[in-house]
């Protein structure tokens, strides 16, 4: 009896090797559970949940123009998730993608604003893309260098770097690059500096799809990818194997920042046709969720980023058609993400209740 009391009501134990069909059942279940919870929220907000979900889906995918907008939302999410995947694989917590996007956008905007008349459009766009990649990469290299050299905390470092570069954009907006005096708005780019449209959406979507393949190959079929995986598993093993951990870190962060920088170029040149302090718009953070949900699998990221884009576009439509505040759909998105990430816990661990413990013991 006494011993029995000491056992807590619920215990956790690591689970290994669950059949994959069960895993997928749990995942599907968590999505359904999230949708049901979301329905409850919508009901409270005074909307019919069934038609609300219908409106969200038709709003995001029902029309050609809606699909285009959904794709436009998904592009930076996907691109940025690809960028942070190698860092996270290496267990280098880069939460500075927001700033790296912004740095890339600044560099691309410089050429868009001041070189538009001097270069033909394809050359200009290439230069803008390269400049974006370089700027994003260098911005990311700074915390990587400090981490490699003095083992600084990369989480805080990359986060703080975001605010600096966003501050730079604010200064540019109100200062040297400002259009109408006092407006705080940088003029729209020349047409030559805007990404051309393919199938109605700026061609950034092609760039990120190419990056998906690149990232898949890079992570799974190259020596670099292997080094990243080893460092992620154990830095000591990597050292023992003779890898220069600091060098790999800096190289990977540069690559990560460069891809973020390209995303910045795509957003500034393709979507906004201008630069402003919200150019990253939280993508750098949301894409962490995308990367995590897809378990750093490049192809899964396509699906997850589209899912999030559908939710966000659908929420907009929900607001216009049913007068549901967008914050409600933010709540639903939050519930969905929480459940999807949370279910991984139940895949990796099992709960043992006090009473059930005895049975387990008997079996075992």
């Amino acid at each position, binding site marked *: 009896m006494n011993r029995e009391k000491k056992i807590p009501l619920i215990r956790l134990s690591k689970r290994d090797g669950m059949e994959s069909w*069960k895993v997928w*059942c749990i995942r599907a*279940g968590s999505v*359904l*559970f999230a949708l*049901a*919870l979301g*329905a*409850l929220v*919508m*009901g*409270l*907000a*005074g*909307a*019919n*949940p*069934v*038609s609300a979900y219908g409106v969200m889906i038709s709003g995001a995918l029902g*029309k050609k*123009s*809606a699909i285009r*907008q959904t794709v*436009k939302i998904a592009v930076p999410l996907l691109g940025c998730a690809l960028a942070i995947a190698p860092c996270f694989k290496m267990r280098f917590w880069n939460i500075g993608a927001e700033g790296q996007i912004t740095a890339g956008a600044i560099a691309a905007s410089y050429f868009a604003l001041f070189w538009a008349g001097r270069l033909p459009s394809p050359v200009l766009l290439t230069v803008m893309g390269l400049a974006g990649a370089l700027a994003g990469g260098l911005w990311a290299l700074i915390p990587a260098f400090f981490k490699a050299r003095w083992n600084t905390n990369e989480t805080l470092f990359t986060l703080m770097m975001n605010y600096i570069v966003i501050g730079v954009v604010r200064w540019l907006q*109100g200062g040297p690059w*400002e*259009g*109408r*005096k*006092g*407006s*705080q*708005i940088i*003029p*729209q780019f020349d047409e030559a500096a805007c990404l051309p449209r393919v199938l109605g959406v700026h061609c950034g979507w092609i760039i990120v799809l190419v990056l998906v393949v690149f990232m898949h190959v890079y992570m799974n079929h190259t020596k670099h990818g292997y080094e990243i995986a080893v460092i992620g598993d154990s830095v000591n093993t990597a050292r023992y194997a003779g890898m220069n951990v600091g060098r790999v870190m800096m190289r990977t962060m540069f690559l990560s920042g460069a891809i973020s920088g390209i995303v910045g170029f795509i*957003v500034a040149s393709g*979507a*906004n*046709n*201008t630069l*402003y302090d*919200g*150019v990253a*718009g939280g993508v750098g953070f949301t894409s962490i969720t995308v990367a995590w949900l897809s378990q750093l699998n490049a192809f899964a990221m396509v699906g997850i980023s589209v899912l999030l884009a559908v939710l966000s*576009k659908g929420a*907009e*439509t929900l*607001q*216009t*058609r*049913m*007068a549901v*505040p*967008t914050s409600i759909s933010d709540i639903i998105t939050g519930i969905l993400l929480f459940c999807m990430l949370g279910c991984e816990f139940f895949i990796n661990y099992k709960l043992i209740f006090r009473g059930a413990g005895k049975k387990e013991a008997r079996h075992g």
Partner: protein
Amino acid sequence: MKKFLALLLSMILALSLAACGGGSGQPSGGGQSAEPQPSGGEPSGGEPSGSEAKTVKVGLICIGDENDQGYTYNFIRGKEAATEALAAKGINVDWAVKWNIGEDSGCEDANIDLADEGCDLIINNSFGFEPFMLKVAPDYPEIEFIACTNQASWGDSLENTHNAFANIYEGRYLAGVVAGMKLQQMIDEGTISADQAVIGYVGAFSFAEVISGFTSYFLGARSVCPSVTMKVQFVGSWSDATEEANAASALADMGCVMISQHSDNTTPATTAEAKGVYHTGYNNDMISVAPGASLIGTRIDWAPYFEYAIEAVANGESFDQDWCHGMDMNAVVMTDLNEAIAAPGTAEKLAEVEEQLRSGKLQVFDTSTFTIDGKALESAFALDTDGDFTPDSEEAVFDGAFHESYFQSAPYFALSIDGIEWLNSAFG
């Protein structure tokens, strides 16, 4: 395995229960949300007045939401008043509103969305929305687009784009008169000396709209209190409650005995109250938050314009591409005068000056009332035609006055006149 299946089954059961729960909640909730639309459409549709009822679907894109109690809230008041006025004319307005839209490609999407939803008219409420609206407008020539407070429509070669503003400088001038009378009263009573009559102005940015606003305010005050001077502090944000309060507080500490503002929050009013100085407001009646400080406020009333534009669309008529009216069409209104603290005779003086403004007898920017670097203003351009953001055509100074909002609705008075000290102009 059995256990797992049992778990799965119970999960599904729980889920379906939850779904039913959501479902049973829906008839009442859904009924509530679904009802307003038909009820909004039916009664006037079934009105026995005989005239056929028209319905116009209007989209409104807002940078904030009505909780800001300032900029967007003012638009919503206009929207509601216009809806009512139009209903009386047999025109139903079916609104689709988008809140909290950023000045980026999200605004472009919002315009496309509303166009696809079948709106006949789409109103963009913020200055920075215009470039994104202009990307959508050419694709929907049958839909009318309005960019409030901006300025491209007179020259963008599109038939379906419109700009609108109000002559808010008239309201500012009147608020200035109220402030000036209070200051003169304080001088006459010996509370302050003549050179202590200093106004502190909290401005957002050194943007033409703001400069035009504080200059007209200052001229209004000086018309009744000749010794007044003004200090302007820019906060570098259209809406930052804390910074606005800090600026107001700093101005009061510098000896300003009257605070006014061109920013979205009520914190300058509450700060003025706490510092024991007076205040005149913008966008909203601020007497409720600062009963001992707030003398009066002025705001744009968007209802007359909305009514005008929507009625034109309903009747299939074209309407002005660049609309700007003031007191003449009640597009600029004064909030209630705080009689308890205003100088005696203010209401009468206000009515008198208002009448002079309406009749055109009084010009706010009368060039005989101000100087720039000691010289009278003889020439200033109004419009920028080559896109370099510097006005280069249309002489605004004629008939003895600078004609504000005459060539385009958006204000273009951006000169620094004597008597007003800019404490910082870092934001421009």
